[in-house]
C-alpha cells in the first residue's frame, strides 16, 4: 500500500513569549501512515497529539526533521493548497469551524475556496451531505442543530473537498453518547466505503478500539504502536503513562489478578463475554 503521511525525525517547539522559554513537544519523532488505513492516536493531555495533527496539513511546520504529505514536503509553501485539499481536518468544537449560517453554504465553503465551477460544487455538496446523512438539513441554520449533527456538517465540509485523508482532532469530545455514535459511524463508513485515510485523535478507548492501528504518544514519543489488540493488551504500560484500556480489557485484566488467565485482546463485549464464559 502507498504511504499517506511520513514523519521523519520531527522536532517541534512552541515558541516562548518574550523571556519565557519555548515548550519542546517533539524531539525526534518518526512514523508513517498508510493510505486507506484507520489510525487512532491516543495519549494524555499535553503529549503532543494535536500538535502532531497540525503538522499533517501544514498548519504547523516542523522546527527540525521533515513531514511528507503524499510525498510533498509540508514546508513547501507553493503546494500548500494541494496539501490542504488532500488532508482535511475536523476540530473538537463544531461551533468554531462552521463558517456560514446555512448548512449547504458551509459545506460549499471548501470547494468555493478551491475555485471549482458552480455546478460541480452543487454536486459535491449534495454528495457530501448524503454521505454524512444530513441532506435533509441542507437549508437549516447550523446553530439550531445538535452537536453530533453540527460535527457531521463539519465532516461534510471536509469531504466536499474530496480529500484522501481526514484528520479528526477529538471530534467527539463535546458530544453526548448519541452524537458520538453518529460521528463514529460516519467516520467508519467513510474509511470503509470511500477508502479515505482516517487519523482519529481521541480520549475514548472504545473509539480507538475500532481502528486498525493505535498509536500511543507519551511525552512527544511513540510509546506503543500496533493493532488495537496488541496495544491494549499491554495494560501495565498503558497504566504507567496514565491511560486505560477499553473496559473489556480492563475487566479481563482485573479478573486475571484474581487468578484467572484470560486473554487481554478481546475488545468487543461479545467476544470478551465468550472468553470469560469459557474459563469459568
Amino acid at each position, binding site marked *: 500500500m502507498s504511504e499517506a503521511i511520513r514523519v521523519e525525525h520531527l522536532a517541534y517547539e512552541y515558541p516562548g513569549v518574550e523571556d519565557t522559554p519555548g515548550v519542546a513537544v517533539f524531539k525526534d519523532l518518526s512514523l508513517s501512515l498508510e493510505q486507506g488505513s484507520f489510525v487512532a492516536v491516543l495519549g494524555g493531555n499535553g503529549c503532543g497529539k494535536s500538535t502532531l495533527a497540525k503538522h499533517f496539513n501544514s498548519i504547523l511546520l516542523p522546527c527540525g526533521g521533515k513531514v511528507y504529505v503524499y510525498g510533498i514536503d509540508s514546508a513547501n509553501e507553493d503546494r500548500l*493548497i494541494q496539501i490542504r485539499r488532500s488532508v482535511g481536518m475536523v*476540530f473538537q468544537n463544531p461551533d468554531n469551524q462552521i463558517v456560514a449560517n*446555512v448548512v449547504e*453554504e458551509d459545506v460549499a465553503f471548501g470547494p468555493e475556496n478551491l475555485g471549482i465551477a458552480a455546478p460541480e460544487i452543487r454536486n459535491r455538496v449534495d454528495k457530501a451531505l448524503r454521505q454524512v446523512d444530513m441532506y435533509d438539513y441542507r437549508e437549516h441554520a447550523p446553530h439550531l442543530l445538535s452537536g453530533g449533527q453540527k460535527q457531521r456538517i463539519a465532516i461534510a465540509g471536509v469531504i466536499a473537498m474530496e480529500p484522501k485523508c481526514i484528520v479528526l482532532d477529538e471530534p467527539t469530545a463535546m458530544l453526548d453518547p448519541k452524537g458520538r455514535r453518529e460521528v463514529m459511524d460516519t467516520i467508519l463508513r467513510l474509511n470503509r466505503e470511500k477508502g479515505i485515510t482516517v487519523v482519529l485523535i481521541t480520549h475514548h478507548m472504545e473509539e480507538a478500539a475500532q481502528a486498525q492501528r493505535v498509536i500511543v504518544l507519551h511525552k512527544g514519543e511513540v510509546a506503543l504502536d500496533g493493532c488495537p489488540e496488541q496495544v491494549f493488551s499491554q495494560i501495565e504500560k498503558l497504566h504507567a503513562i496514565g491511560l486505560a484500556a477499553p473496559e473489556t480489557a480492563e475487566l479481563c485484566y482485573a479478573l486475571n489478578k484474581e487468578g484467572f488467565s484470560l486473554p487481554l485482546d478481546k475488545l468487543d463485549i461479545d467476544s470478551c463475554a465468550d472468553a470469560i464464559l469459557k474459563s469459568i
Partner: protein
Amino acid sequence: MLKDITLGQYFPGTSFIHRLDPRTKLLVLIVYIVALFVAKTWVSYLVCLAFLALCIAISTISLKSIFRGLKPLVFILVFTGVLNIFLTDGETVLVKWWIITITLEGVVRAVYMIVRIMMLVSATFLLTYTTSPISLTDGLESLLSPLKKLHFPVHELAMMMCIALRFIPTLIEETDKIMSAQRSRGADFESGKLMERVRALIPILVPLFIGAFRRADELATAMECRCYHGGEGRTKMKLLRYKRRDYLAFLAGIILLATIITLRCFGW
C-alpha cells in the same frame, strides 16, 4: 430573554419579491428612496405609497410585521415632527405664544417628514424581511465588486458580514450561559441603580470577549484548513443571475422615478 433578539429578521417565502435577485431589490430600493426624496407634494407621495403598498401586497408580508418594525422609531418620528413644527418659518400663523410660533407650513412639513421616514423605513424592512442575510451579503458583494479595482476590500467585507451573522446566535447563547453562571454565584443583574447595573455587566463582558477571541482564533485555523486564501480565485456555489422578473422589477422602479420627476416638473 436574550433569545428574543433578532437581527436582520427574515421571513422565508416564495413570492415574486422573495424570488427577486438580491441585487435587484437593493437597486430598486435605492431608486425608490431617490423618488421619495424628489417627491414634494401629496400627489407624488401617494404615487410612492401606492408603489410601496403594491410591493408589500405582492410580498405576502403582513402589515403587522412592518408596523412592528416601525415601533422602535416612534421616538425619532416624534422628535423630527416636533422639530419641524417649531422650526419652520411660514406666513399662516396658527399659534403664537411667548417665543413659540406654530405655522401651517410647519405642520404640513412635519407631516410630510414623518410620512417620508415611515415609508423609507418600511421599504427597508421589506427588503430584509424578504431576503435571507446570506443572499443580501452576496448581493452587496456583487454590487460593490467594481470597487475592487480601487483596492477596496469588498470580498473581505462580505466575508466579515457573513461570519458576524453566523456568530450572532452563538454569542447570544454564550452570553446566556455566562449570565447563568454568574447568577448561580450570586450576581445580580436586575436590581440596583443604573451605575451598579452597568458595573454588573463587566463580569459578563470580559469572559464573553475572551471567548470570542478564542473562537476567532479557532475559526481562522479551521478556515485555513479548508484552503481559504482570500477572495482571489474563489468561486461561488450559487451564482447570481438576473432573470425576467428582475427586469420587470427594474422597469417598475424606473417608471416610479420617471413619474415622480414628471410630477415635480409640472409643479405637483
